[in-house]
């Protein structure tokens, strides 16, 4: 297999909050630090956000004494409609992925569409036996 298999996650979510509030929740360090890359057992120890095109971000979540950085760079910052950033977690993978957020204002809140594009690593080492389980899991969700 080529090692540039692309995959995409897309999901849509409605919020009762305004498009502006939802948009700002991604870029305000205090607010974003409370949900974006936070984990239930981790502690968000540092959030740096340079919210402009070309600006970088780094969220550091401390998990069992280990600092896990979530890093990326903003490619589009168009409040409150569109936010695009690259994203990677170097601790787990060097692969850079891209997240595209689009927010549409509604009369009673807003709708957010999230697309996360990945460039996948080669999974050659994964065994065929593990595959049947994955397939059964996938079947349940189709």
């Amino acid at each position, binding site marked *: *297999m*080529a090692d*540039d*298999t*692309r*995959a*995409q*996650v897309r*999901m849509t*979510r409605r*919020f*009762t*909050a*305004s498009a502006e*509030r*939802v948009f700002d*929740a991604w870029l305000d360090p205090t*607010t974003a630090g*409370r*949900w*974006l*890359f*936070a984990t239930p057992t981790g502690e968000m120890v540092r959030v740096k956000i340079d919210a402009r095109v070309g600006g970088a971000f780094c969220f550091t979540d401390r998990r069992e004494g280990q600092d896990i950085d979530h890093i990326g760079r903003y490619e589009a910052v168009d409040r409150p409609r569109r936010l695009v950033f690259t994203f990677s977690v170097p601790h787990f993978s060097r692969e850079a992925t891209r997240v595209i957020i689009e927010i549409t204002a509604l009369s009673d809140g807003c709708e*957010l569409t*999230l697309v*996360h594009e*990945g460039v*996948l*690593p*080669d*999974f*050659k080492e*994964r065994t*065929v*036996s*593990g*595959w*049947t389980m*994955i*397939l059964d*899991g*996938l*079947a349940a969700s*189709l």
Partner: protein
Amino acid sequence: MSDTPDLDHTLTALADPTRRAILRRLSRGEARVTELAAPFDISLNAVSKHIRMLERARLVTRRRTGREHILSFDPAPLTAASTWIDEQRALWTARLDALDALLLAEDRAAAENPEKQGSSDG
């Protein structure tokens, strides 16, 4: 488009119980078309159509030895795509749940302490 497997083809290929059963059989070892068709109560022609869809998704590869067509299973598109997608979907669902909860908590706090709310009207 490119020569990378198309995820839509992968998911379409998987959206059918007969095709999933064919893949399960092939995950235990390669097989001839006739061997694959045997357990199914459908025509050889129908099985061949299913196999072509699996080939299009690159989950199944075919080689010829003489007059025999031997089919084998290639899990790479499936494992790579589905593992990453499952993980990311779960992560983003949890994150957006957390965002929703956070915004609702802010709303409740504002409702309980209206005088503390700034000029923002949400």
